[in-house]
């Protein structure tokens, strides 16, 4: 991992079209601004991880479980 030290107002440029700027620091929190092309996805790390974990749990869908669910759903 590349580690850089930055002050408020300073930025980091990634490639030719992504800029990450440290906006302000307040206690234990840091506000960060990100400028990136619209086809680059930017997410909070922990939310992205939750989605990825749930996808992995769901990714091996089973036909029998699906049929049972459909029956249970229709008769609820």
């Amino acid at each position, binding site marked *: 991992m590349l580690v850089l030290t930055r002050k408020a107002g300073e930025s980091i440029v990634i490639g030719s079209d992504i800029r990450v700027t440290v906006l302000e620091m307040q206690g234990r929190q840091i506000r960060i601004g990100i400028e990136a092309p*619209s086809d680059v996805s930017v997410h909070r790390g922990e939310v992205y991880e939750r989605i990825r*974990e*749930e996808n992995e749990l769901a*990714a091996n869908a089973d*036909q029998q479980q699906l049929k049972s*669910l*459909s029956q*249970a759903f229709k008769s609820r």
Partner: protein
Amino acid sequence: MSEAEVQTVTFHNAKFGEVTVDSRDLLEFPYGLPGFERFKQYGLIEVEEEAPFLRLLSLDEPRLGFVILNPVLIWPDYNPDIGREDLEGLGIEKVEQLAIYCIITLSDIPQNVTANLRGPICINTDTMKAKQMILVDERYQTKHSIMGSQAG
């Protein structure tokens, strides 16, 4: 396109066996799905005895297949806040082009089946390009019980 020109694609899935899908029901996820970024082509398959759920099966990886659902059938008020840039990235300009599904996490026990409302799958129904959105919207989580919710 006339009926005679409708083409189908047949592929194999480990859990569903041989599957044939209308080429108009092929989806492209240009970025894949989180955790499965390499796999971009999926077939959307609707079978009567599995309704209202649909299969979303990878054409690239036989062991990769999801079950999805139109969340409005269970949560009529589902109205996720999806970023304009995300919709523009899919080429969606009007709401008629947008279809939204959520991924279902199955279980042997129907009461344990959940829907992921935090990561809805958005489809441009004109181009069949799709993307799983990662919502900032705190109202929705990755696990919402299906059978425990009120009937839609």
